């Protein structure tokens, strides 16, 4: 199946149709909305289901396999975040705060995108490695921590130069400012590790690991059979939010709009190729690519609003949710699936095994 057919058939899946429906509902100013409690509950449910599956799979495969892909994912995520920053700052001429906030939003991962990816693979009849759920958990804070660290470095550098020029009389103010930046990082670290997304994800991975396949049996009706249905309901909400933000896209500008489409494509395809070289399966490589392609829009505002309050939140929320998310689930997933099928095809697999043997 070529990539356009795949995109076309992906468009007609319930997940995408309900997302588009949500956008339309918001555009015609319908009062349709998913009750708040449910839209807060669904991400928790999705993460629990992802974690349980990951844990069960990890029980089968063990931990050793996961180490290299995880370290590579962390490395790539950091590298991409730095790369995003340079592009946004130099080419996009964004200020330092917006650049770091956007860079980390795009370096971070999106759990909802991940869920959609899993059900996309299910649709295609392909499985993926369970330990990717653990990588999702580990990757979540990485890009933010880097961006916050670098932002604070830049701020203290500015303060230091100011201090030199003033010399003396304003020292107490400056010292206070320095102290504030230092405490920020440890706070963010603590908050993101104890944040609900990581806690429920890691907790479910551990529980999934303990209970294994047999223990999962009695609860599989909730955490397996209902998974895609739950995403569909969440997609209505996502569509409504994206639809409400459609006007804001104009404010985002052409540069950021193209950034929000081009960067995920590049990152995702690099992810697919690298993970294939690491020996991940067809589906695993797609999910690995999706991890690197996705932008965070649920965790990002909560983290960045505290850590880099100077950045304009409507920039990073609108571009991640209004542009990158729909692009990722509608267009990029089929593209990465095609790329992954291609590099996993006969012949090329030998090439990649060869590359793996020689270089790693």
């Amino acid at each position: 199946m070529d990539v356009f057919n795949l995109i076309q058939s992906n468009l007609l899946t319930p997940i995408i149709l309900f997302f588009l429906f949500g956008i339309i509902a918001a555009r015609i100013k319908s009062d349709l909305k998913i009750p708040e409690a449910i839209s807060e509950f669904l991400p928790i449910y999705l993460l629990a289901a992802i974690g349980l599956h990951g844990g069960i799979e990890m029980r089968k495969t063990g931990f050793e396999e996961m180490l290299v892909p995880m370290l590579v994912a962390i490395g790539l995520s950091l590298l991409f975040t730095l790369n995003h920053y340079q592009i946004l700052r130099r080419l996009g001429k964004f200020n330092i705060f917006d650049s770091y906030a956007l860079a980390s939003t795009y370096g971070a991962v999106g759990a909802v995108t991940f869920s959609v990816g899993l059900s996309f693979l299910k649709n295609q009849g392909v499985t993926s490695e369970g330990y990717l759920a653990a990588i999702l958990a580990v990757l979540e804070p990485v890009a933010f921590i880097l961006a916050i660290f670098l932002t604070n470095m830049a701020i203290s550098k500015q303060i230091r130069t100011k201090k030199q020029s003033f010399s003396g009389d304003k020292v107490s103010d400056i010292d206070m400012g320095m102290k504030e930046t230092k405490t920020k990082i440890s706070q963010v670290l603590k908050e993101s590790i104890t944040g609900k997304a990581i806690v429920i994800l890691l907790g479910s991975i551990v529980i999934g690991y303990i209970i294994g396949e047999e223990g999962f049996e009695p609860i599989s009706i909730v955490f397996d059979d209902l998974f895609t249905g739950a995403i569909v309901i969440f997609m209505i909400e996502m569509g409504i939010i994206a639809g409400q933000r459609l006007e804001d896209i104009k404010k985002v500008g052409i540069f950021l709009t193209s950034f929000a489409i081009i960067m995920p494509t590049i990152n995702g395809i690099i992810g697919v190729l690298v993970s294939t070289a690491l020996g991940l399966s067809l589906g695993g490589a797609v999910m690995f690519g999706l991890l690197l392609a996705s932008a965070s829009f649920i965790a990002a505002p909560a983290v960045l609003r505290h850590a880099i309050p100077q950045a304009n939140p409507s920039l990073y929320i609108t571009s991640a949710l209004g542009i990158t998310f729909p692009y990722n689930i509608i267009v990029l997933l089929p593209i990465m699936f095609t790329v992954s099928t291609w590099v996993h095809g006969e012949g090329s697999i030998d090439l990649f095994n060869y590359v793996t043997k020689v270089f790693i």
Partner: protein
Amino acid sequence: MKLYDVKLLTITCEILAQKNVIDILKNHEITGYTSYEVDGNGEKGLRGQGILSEKNVKVEVIMREEKLSAVVEDISRTLFPDFTIILYVSDVGVVRTEKF
């Protein structure tokens, strides 16, 4: 009944600034406050009707006049530039002044 004059500080802000506000209150040794979720319209458009991070909260704090200006100054200096925030002060009367 005798009522004592104290100040009521009301802060309406985006929910993500709530923690900062409460931290500032804590720095001034004020631990009592009441907060509730609200929605409304303003400079930043309709707020409080979308995702969780777009909610607004209203924080109400009763305090003695002596502390008021330092608290308001702190909030204005650290939060006004970056957050959606409205702050106002009113005079209220309480029965048990020792609680504040």
